[in-house]
């Protein structure tokens, strides 16, 4: 469990980062949405101790983040950062993955096996000996994800995981998130990609101006006009369609659902009899 208790944070230049944030995040999939500058990245940087609250406390599995090092907390909370270039520093892709594992005290054979596993999962085996800085934007992001996953943390925080990803990679990330959730891990996803989030139907925490604006089911959060305005989102297309078709009390959460509904609708229409 990650728990925020009345957390406030102010940057050195006086900018308000977080204001009176209280929340609990456990296992399963939790999405965080909000306009640019709402405080999403600032919130998750509190989860592994990169930032420490000015007011209040953050606990990770009962441990106050004030009393632990970033390295200790990172074993429990792995963060994929929004900007992957800042996260990469090794000479080769392979070293990039093994570095953290060495620090956690794994044996060489364990490290080797782990590196093989994640490289093949993310289709990066060809890049093994290359410098991470020569990868494409999307490949860098995938490498960072591979690095974090290799640690097998209890909580995985993904700050904009779909940037630079084609839809096949997005489906891969989606499958991974679902698998981790089924293993009772906690996955926290920050994303502006509402279509990606809609597929996952997560719990959604909406942020605005450093505060929590709302917290609830995706179908609820993405439907409320006030939340849409304050978080500057655009409704996912299937939800928008549900709204127009007035099925919004039970919106289409998958394409199959929409196909079935529309087939029914079209069959009832005179069109079908004439066809």
């Amino acid at each position, binding site marked *: 469990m990650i728990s925020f208790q009345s957390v406030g944070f102010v940057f050195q230049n006086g900018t308000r980062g977080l204001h009176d944030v209280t929340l609990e995040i456990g296992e399963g999939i939790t999405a965080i949405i*909000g306009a*640019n500058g709402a405080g999403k990245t600032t919130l998750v940087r509190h989860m592994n101790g990169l930032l420490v609250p000015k007011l209040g406390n953050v606990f990770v599995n009962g441990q106050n983040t004030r009393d632990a090092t970033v390295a200790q907390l990172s074993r429990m909370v792995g963060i994929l950062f929004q900007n992957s270039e800042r996260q990469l520093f090794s000479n080769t892709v392979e070293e990039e993955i093994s570095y953290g594992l060495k620090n956690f005290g794994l044996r060489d054979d364990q490290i080797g096996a782990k590196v093989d596993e994640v490289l093949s999962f993310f289709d990066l085996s060809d890049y093994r000996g290359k410098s991470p800085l020569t990868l494409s934007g999307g490949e860098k992001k995938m490498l960072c994800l591979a690095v974090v996953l290799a640690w097998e943390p209890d909580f995985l925080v993904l700050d904009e995981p*779909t940037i630079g990803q*084609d839809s096949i990679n997005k489906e891969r990330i989606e499958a991974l998130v679902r698998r981790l959730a089924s293993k009772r891990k906690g996955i926290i996803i920050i994303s502006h990609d509402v279509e990606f989030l809609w597929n996952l139907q997560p719990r959604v925490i909406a942020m605005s101006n450093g505060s929590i604006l709302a917290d609830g089911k995706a179908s609820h959060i993405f439907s409320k006009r006030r939340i849409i305005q304050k978080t500057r989102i655009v409704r996912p297309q299937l939800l928008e369609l549900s709204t127009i078709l007035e099925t919004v009390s039970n919106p289409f959460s998958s394409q199959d659902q929409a196909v079935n509904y529309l087939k029914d609708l*079209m069959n009832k229409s005179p069109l079908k009899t004439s066809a």
Partner: protein
Amino acid sequence: MENEIISFIDYSFAYQNSGQRALENINLSIKRGEIVVIVGPTGCGKSTLLRSINGLIPHMFQGEIKGSVTVDGLLVQESPVNELSKRVGLVFQNPENQIFMFTVERDIAFGLENTGVPRLEMKKRVDEAIESLGIGHLRYKPPYELSDGEKHRVAIAGVLAMKPDILVLDEPTSLLDPRSAMDLMKTIEGLHKKFGMTILIVEHRLEFSAVIANRIVVMNKGKIVSTGPVREILAAEESLKLGVGIPPITRLHMALKDGGIELGQTPITPKEFMQNVRGKLHD
């Protein structure tokens, strides 16, 4: 071609020490005033293609070139970067590689200061760029103390203020909140209408950019595999296989079509989809 502004002829490029070609025998012609979206799988060479237009390749990134790229009559390989950058404005995939001044305002003005634009004109353009990206509240802040999406907006504003003839954007909406992404597309469309700018956009998500584009170019493994009108490409089976970010509503349309329900023109937005449905229901 007469009104051609960018032309790749039998162009290949391999980054130094990489052992393989990032671009392979590219032939592509862009007309003045076109809005073209470039799509393709992660790592297929989209950014490399864009770098070959503004001279980053070969002037910053070394490697082996075959064939040629010509931009507004200039052969890129032989033209100095400052000549090219008068014509081509490139927004990088990672905004941190593009912002470096002490305040947002100075950062946006930086390019203009170096081109000798009169002060009044400069101020006007900076104001317009700040206004259209909605970053007035960040004007006097240092760019490195901003959120990632805010940085991205600053980087985009800096390029827009230059009013280049050719505007090239590498995933410009990836860090923006959805409203800002839509606003940006409107701004780009406006610049296109007003100044006849030629615009190239690399994007994975097509919900926003497909609406304003004239044409999509699909790449795979360093090659151009198809190019055509937006709706045609979105509806092509090959696009789905390659992982092109086809909007969910377009996918729904295709799924219904596969199930024997033909609704008409390929939609990009739920509104367009509903127009099709209503058309059929009221037949």
